């Protein structure tokens, strides 16, 4: 790359159109990206890429494969999009439920821990009504602390969400049993 090149001001621009922008879908950029997309088997992709507000998150791929007119979805002002970015997140499992509080052990997800190293008591009134219905010993939840942003404002916030996990299946029990056998088999008694 040339130092002090005049190109330094030109390389990255919003004025160019891409399949992800809502302005011009007939650009050369569309053709180049489509050729790449076409390499995928069955013309399918699991990518979401940048949201195209004309098509509510559908990619160029979808636009090609669906033949009817896609209804116009809501247009968003980017600042109106609410985001909550966690600075810290724990997975908790409930160990005891009292009248007004519950106790839980916490695994630090942010620090990529695998076992619980912290214990906490949380007020039940901090939970939403629908999460109160899920509160019982052994229930799993995520506790996130981070920034909630919308309409240009940023607010530090804490959020507890109880997990809605699938019911255990026979195959889950069989896998757990197999895993337990492997663990027992790996123990060396002295």
């Amino acid at each position, binding site marked *: *790359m040339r130092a002090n*090149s005049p*190109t*330094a*001001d*030109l*390389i*990255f*621009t*919003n*004025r*160019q*159109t*891409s399949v*992800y922008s*809502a302005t011009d879908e007939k650009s050369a*950029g569309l053709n180049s*990206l489509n050729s790449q997309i076409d390499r995928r*088997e069955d013309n*399918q*992709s*699991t*990518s*979401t*890429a*940048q*949201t195209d507000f004309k098509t*509510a*998150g559908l990619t160029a791929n*979808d636009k090609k494969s*669906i033949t*009817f007119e*896609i*209804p116009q979805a809501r247009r968003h002002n*980017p600042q109106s*999009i*609410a*985001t*909550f*970015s*966690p*600075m810290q*997140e724990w*997975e908790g499992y409930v160990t005891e439920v009292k009248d007004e509080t519950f106790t839980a052990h916490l695994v630090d*997800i942010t620090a990529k821990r695998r076992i619980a190293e912290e214990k906490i008591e949380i007020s039940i009134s901090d939970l*939403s009504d*629908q*999460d109160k*219905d899920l509160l019982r010993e052994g229930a799993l939840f*995520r506790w*996130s602390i*981070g*920034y909630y*942003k919308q309409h240009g404002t940023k607010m530090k916030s804490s959020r507890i969400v109880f*997990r*809605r996990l*699938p*019911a255990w*299946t026979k*195959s889950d029990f069989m896998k757990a049993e197999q895993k337990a056998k492997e663990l027992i088999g790996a123990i060396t008694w002295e």
Partner: protein
Amino acid sequence: MLIDPDLEDASIVLLGDFNPSIFNPDWFSRNGVVGPQDAQLGQVDVIHPDLAQFRISDLEFSIDRKRFQVLTRVAPLIKLLDVAMKTFTELLPHTPVAQFGINRSIHFRTGSEEVRNKIGLTLAPLGPWGEWGIEIAKGSGELRGGMTSLSMQEALKHGAFRRLITATVQPSALIPQPDGIFVGVNDHFERRDGLRDSFIVFDTLNEVFQSSLDRSESIIDRVIALKDEVNARK
């Protein structure tokens, strides 16, 4: 992540055969996938035999006959996994699904258009484009050119799957100021034998979900770090 991004989202995309018309906020609530209050406040864009699009709380659903997508911009992201697992292992276990993707993307501001341009030049220098690169460099204003999208892909074998991790960097189409960058990572899994055994698909999705997000965020962090690197070169 290195920074608190301006906008972000994560999603799970499943490719297979779906019946869009059965999915709606009430169905998810009745089956315990989402809370009843969240479902009551759900917003439906369209429910049609070919397409269903609706929102339940911070979850955005988009389902057509070949594709099921659930997206959120609000942590904890694990709820995406819980929705997919409960829906397709407990409620609809016979749905044929052959491929899945875990997506993570952010939009962040670099502080100035100059810094953004330098990041673009770092990733895609104009020199190798020769004479055309020089012509591109001459543009300005409405005729300004440059890098519009760059993708980098890693291909791996993961058990029964071919795994393609694709990172894409583009100017942000959502941040109105001219200093925004979009970084998206698509972690795509497809059966190498073409079979559509949803049991293995969801077993693998469950196994890799968190580590996939961690890896995607480390890739995103690398692009974010370019901001400090180009600033240090000033």
